[in-house]
């Protein structure tokens, strides 16, 4: 048992527990908090895999920006504890069928692929340098410039859309 394995096991437990906590919380604020914790756990997984850039981006974007805004909205709307609602009739069988398919797929991939290919070697410290970070940014702005710009335009459109929608509502209330 090396230290990395122990950290991995503890983290996995935390990640699963927080994910379950998010699902089963009756209070929307607690659910959001569990999700934020889950994001942090996943970020530490990235750190374990030797990808600090992704880890920091994960925390900044998901835990820091998106979840905080979620919390904001939940609190401003003042959501009380959720009532146990009746699910849609077709929801349960569909969910069961889909999850069985997903589990089967995962098992197949694990059994069939994990044996043939070698275990993924964990990247060593040599990859975790300033050089790799520079390469990442250079690639993002040369080879993948088009997808990068398209993504940013998509986000811009979403932002403008939100502003336009909220503005229209304002006019109607006047």
């Amino acid at each position: 048992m090396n230290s990395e394995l122990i950290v991995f096991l503890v983290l996995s437990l935390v990640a699963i527990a927080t994910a379950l906590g998010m699902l089963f919380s009756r209070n929307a604020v607690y659910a959001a908090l569990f999700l934020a914790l889950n994001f942090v756990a996943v970020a530490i997984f990235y750190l374990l895999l030797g990808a600090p850039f992704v880890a920091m981006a994960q925390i900044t974007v998901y835990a820091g920006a998106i979840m905080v805004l979620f919390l904001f909205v939940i609190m401003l709307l003042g959501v009380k504890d959720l009532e146990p609602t009746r699910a849609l009739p077709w929801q349960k069988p569909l969910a069961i069928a889909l999850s069985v398919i997903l589990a089967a797929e995962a098992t197949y991939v694990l059994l069939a692929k994990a044996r043939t290919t070698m275990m993924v070697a964990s990247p060593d410290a040599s990859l975790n340098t300033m050089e790799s970070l520079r390469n990442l940014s250079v690639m993002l702005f040369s080879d993948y410039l088009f997808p990068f710009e398209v993504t940013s335009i998509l986000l811009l459109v979403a932002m403008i859309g939100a502003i336009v929608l909220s503005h229209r509502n304002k006019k109607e209330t006047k």
Partner: protein
Amino acid sequence: MTMDWTMWLEWFLKGLVMCLILLGGFAYLTLYERRALARIQTRVGPNRAGPQGILQPIADAVKLIFKEELTPASVYKTVFILAPVITVVPSLVIAAVIPLGGTFMLGGREIALSVADLNVGVLYLTAIASVAVYGIVLAGWSSNNKYAMLGGVRSAAQMISYEISLGLCFVLAVILSALGNPEGGSMNLREIVDAQRGMWFAVYQPLGAVIFFFVTLAEVNRAPFDMPEAEQELTAGYHAEYSGMKFALFFMAEYQKMIVVSLIGITLFFGGYRELWFMTDWFGGALSVDKHWFLGPVYLFIKTFIFLFFMIWVRATWPRIRYDRLMALGWKIFLPLCLALVFITAVGILLVDFTGSRVWIWGVPVLSILCGAAVSAFIYRDLRRKSHGRI
């Protein structure tokens, strides 16, 4: 990778020392602030407990510990108790990447004076700064009091708004670290400090440093952006329901954040733990950090002391800014200005690269200051025209 016990010991000791520095710094920053405020307001300040009031922080701590701690009946108890902790922890861990000095040899191993030497140090700062909002939002919500909640939402909105300009200020330092470095810039704080060997980034980008200062004031909820302190007009803020030691934790987080943002500002713009840039060759380099590693923390302490004085000075002299103007200042002034500065700086670096002449970099401060002057003139004119309007 060998993980021997000395390495664990080194990490543990470094973390412990960093925490102790921040805790001790918090205690004596309160004294420093009270004494300095008193001087500015021609008072004496606390000078009874010990010589020059040096024991005052201990007296304050004892008082706070023995204060009655009320937990209102209808709070969300778990979150209510956790919120102060969630506020304090980021203010401590964010300091992990800040280099306090160079490296020295001890028992055959090289020890660097920083807890963690991350390659993505600047990103780490943004990550932790963005998580710091949680404590405030949760404190406001869990109090189950509409004034506390509005205060929490207010402070959190303020922090999120100014975080964007803060991130752009970080970008300024990262871009500037590419100057004269053929490999490009760096996000490692130690490399950023080393890049300022010849000249501080505050000289290349004076407006960036000034904006950084004001943005961090808003980020740590300090005067003149200290909405939670507005008791009469806004019923305080997110900590309205807190008392005793729990309140002290919020107080502690605020002061630790003051120290930490000073350290970050010094690291990014004022040469970090290095001496003044023109002092490197004085007395045959006797005053340089390169020669004597122990001078690093000393220089950093002096710089932090001065930086903190500016924060206290601002609090003593400027009135609190109204909330809508605070938001307008963040979104309509600082954000576009920061974007313009990033553009100007990047163009300056590119010009130096293309022409191979260092002269072009001086276009950056000149253009930046022109930008700042134009914006100041705009604000001044606007405030003159409609004295109660928005910026």
